[in-house]
Each structure stands twice: as structure tokens, then as C-alpha cells.
């Protein structure tokens, strides 16, 4: 390290130029053979039908699309199910909440409302209407008429 930098530089240039590969020929042949044993790339003009096919599921874009679809479908199904057994009726300025053990469809809600509002079914009742407020947008604001 006592050398001047320029001396070092020139010495290294000479050293780099004169180096010969010290690996014996037979050893080098083995190394070349090992490199050649790697899977060969297909020639550029290989027809597509001869190329190995890859399963769709192995393709990253397919996996990503499937994951996104599941992420959308599963919550949508759960959300729909969550509110399927409740209903809110606006009647007489009040909100009446009903919970059903079965799917909440307007006919069943009517049964519930009738039983609640009109506990004496053998007596005539004025026609009343109620607005079904829930659970889903498709059932919102349906007017239910009952006796």
C-alpha cells in the first residue's frame, strides 16, 4: 500500500491483462457439461401447440381475478343474509321492528303485522297500510295493504 496510485493502477492493468484461466481443461469440460445439462430453452420458431401448456390456475392474473371475485361475492351474500330475517314497518308514526325465523318476504311480514296490530282476527279491522322499510332496497317502500 505504499505505492503511488498511478503505479498501482498500471500494475493492476498489467495483472488483469496477463491472467490466464488456471482451471484445468478437463475440469472446464465438466463445468461446460453441467451448464449444458440445464433445461434448454425452446427454439424461437417452436409452434405454440408444441409448447408446454400451463394450467390456468397457475397463472397469476387468473388467481388475482378469482380472489377479487370471491372478495366481492362472499360479503355480498353475507350482507344479503344478515338482514333477511328482520323488517321494519312504519305504522302510525311509529317504527315497528319484526324479526322472523324465515326469509323475510312481504307476505310473511303481513302475517306478523296483522298478528301484532290486530290481535283479534275475528273482528273486522279497518284497512290499514304500512310501509315496509327493510331489509333490502328491493323491499323498501313497499306498501302493504291488509284488512
Amino acid at each position: 500500500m505504499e505505492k503511488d496510485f498511478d503505479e498501482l493502477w498500471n500494475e493492476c492493468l498489467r495483472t488483469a491483462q496477463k491472467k490466464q484461466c488456471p482451471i484445468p481443461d478437463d475440469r472446464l469440460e465438466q463445468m461446460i457439461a453441467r451448464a449444458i445439462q440445464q433445461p434448454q430453452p425452446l427454439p424461437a420458431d417452436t409452434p405454440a401447440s408444441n409448447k408446454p401448456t400451463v394450467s390456468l390456475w397457475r397463472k397469476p392474473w387468473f388467481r388475482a381475478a378469482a380472489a377479487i371475485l370471491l372478495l366481492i361475492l362472499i360479503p355480498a351474500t353475507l350482507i344479503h343474509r344478515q338482514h333477511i330475517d328482520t323488517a321494519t314497518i312504519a305504522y302510525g308514526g311509529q317504527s315497528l321492528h319484526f324479526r322472523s325465523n324465515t326469509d323475510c318476504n312481504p307476505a310473511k311480514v303481513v302475517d306478523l303485522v296483522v298478528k301484532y296490530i290486530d290481535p283479534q282476527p275475528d273482528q273486522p279491522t279497518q284497512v290499514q297500510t304500512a310501509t315496509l322499510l327493510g331489509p333490502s332496497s328491493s323491499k323498501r317502500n313497499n306498501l302493504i295493504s291488509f284488512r
Partner: protein
Amino acid sequence: MQAETHSKEREKAFHELIARHKDFIYNVCRSYRFSASWEVEDAYQEVLCTLWRDMDKFERRSSERTWIFRVARNTLLQLKRKESNLPQPEAGTPAPYYDEQTPDMENYDFLMQLVDNLAKLDSQIVHAYIEGFSYKEIAQMTHLTVPAVAMRLVRAKEQLRSAYNKAK
């Protein structure tokens, strides 16, 4: 049958390529392998594998030496990145190189260590210059103009000089 002939021709071409440039490939591997963690021969094997795999991609727009240098450099830089995760040998451990460690080689290793600390492009230019490439070949390799290569080489050499003087 046609595929077999193509394969044999490719193997023959590869053997001839390595025979022509085996010293040069070794020089390049040696210049990047001053750390004791990897043997030069392992690096040489990796470079051979990459050259074999990418042989068909060589479009002959540059010389064979230029192409080999570029491929070897990329392969060796990847190896160095992997090497940095390995436990480093103790200071003073002699490198397990194939050839003998002479004082010339020690100085050479020291300079290469300084070259490695340069910016990536400057390091590539200095490596190529040390390996005997002309300014024109280096310009082709790095997509720079010849004057730009000359200027970068001058600046890189000054940085190396400064680093060497600090280390003395």
C-alpha cells in the same frame, strides 16, 4: 431428429465460444470475486450456465467479448447480492482462490474493492477498461458516447485515487 441436430450444433457452438474466451471469462469472474465467501470457480460455473441459457439471445450487434462481459457482470452482481446475506469470513482469512495469492493479486484485489464502491455505471466502466475494452466498446456496452465514457473514466480514477490515499 431436427431438434437433436439443433441441440448438437448449439452444444458445439457453446464449446467453441468458451474455448475462445475462457481466459477472459475467468478474468471477469476474478475481478468481482475478491471476497472469501465464494470461490471463483463457483462464479465461473454460474456464468457458464447463464451464457448457455442466453446464447440464442445474442444478436451479434456487439462483439462476443462485449456480450460475455455484460452477461457475466449481471450474473456476478446477482451473486454478490446473495453473498451479502451470507456470514462474512473473519478479517485476514485468505481467499480460497484457484490461483496463488501473490502481492500483485493482493494489490489488484484491493483496487477492485475500491472500484466496487463506485457508482454502478462508473464501476462497470472501470471494470471494462481494466479488462481491456476500448472506449468505443465501453460506449456500446453502456449506451454512452465515447467522450462521456472518457470523462467518466477520468472522474472515476480521481475518486479511486482519493479513496486509495485515504486508505494508505
